[in-house]
């Protein structure tokens, strides 16, 4: 009975993870400019990885495999934001201009901002 419940839980987590991965990929493909595409990539890096990792952990029981899956999840969650930040910073320094909504301040207003703003 318990095993049955765990199977259903892990199966639904896996399918949810797959679905979010697909949605994130769609966002990566559909969004209009580089910075918005980063958010699409963000979905696949976070919820998709967490759900699939959790689903696999539930299936493997308590073993060395569980620990390694946890480590993979930890590494992914630590490295993904770092890589995203490096990319966005490199793109901004390189002069890739984001498309902004009309009612917001342009990027240049934030670029040269004096550092004491508290």
């Amino acid at each position, binding site marked *: 009975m318990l095993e049955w419940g765990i199977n259903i839980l892990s199966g639904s987590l896996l399918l949810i993870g797959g679905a979010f991965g*697909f949605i994130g*990929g769609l966002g*990566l493909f559909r969004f209009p400019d580089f910075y918005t595409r980063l958010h699409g990539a963000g979905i696949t890096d976070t919820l998709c990885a967490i759900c699939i990792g959790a689903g696999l952990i539930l299936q493997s029981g308590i073993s060395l495999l569980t620990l*390694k*899956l946890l480590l993979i999840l930890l590494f992914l969650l630590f*490295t993904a934001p770092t*890589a995203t930040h490096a990319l966005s910073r490199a793109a901004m320094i390189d002069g890739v201009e984001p498309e902004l909504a009309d009612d917001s301040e342009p990027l240049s207003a934030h670029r040269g901002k004096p550092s004491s703003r508290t």
Partner: protein
Amino acid sequence: MTLVLIATTMAVFSTMALALGRALKGPTIYDRIVAVNVFGTKTVLVVALITHITGHADLIDVALVYALINFIAIVTVLKLVKTRDLGSATEEDPQDA
């Protein structure tokens, strides 16, 4: 259960296909690097899924190493694109002037 695992793998494969599409379309070099990054993290998930489908527990080490190497590769490619030089310790940063 194997069916669910295979279905998830297929979903992740379609994500990778979308990422490849973005990598082909560009338009800037950074779009391509983001797409390759997503492709790499999805590869880790696919390898972990295949570990469970086939039951070869040793394959998980491949995923573990790939997760680390992918990060280093992305940062290295980014640095190579930015500075055209892997040897320099720092880059000129107009922001912190």
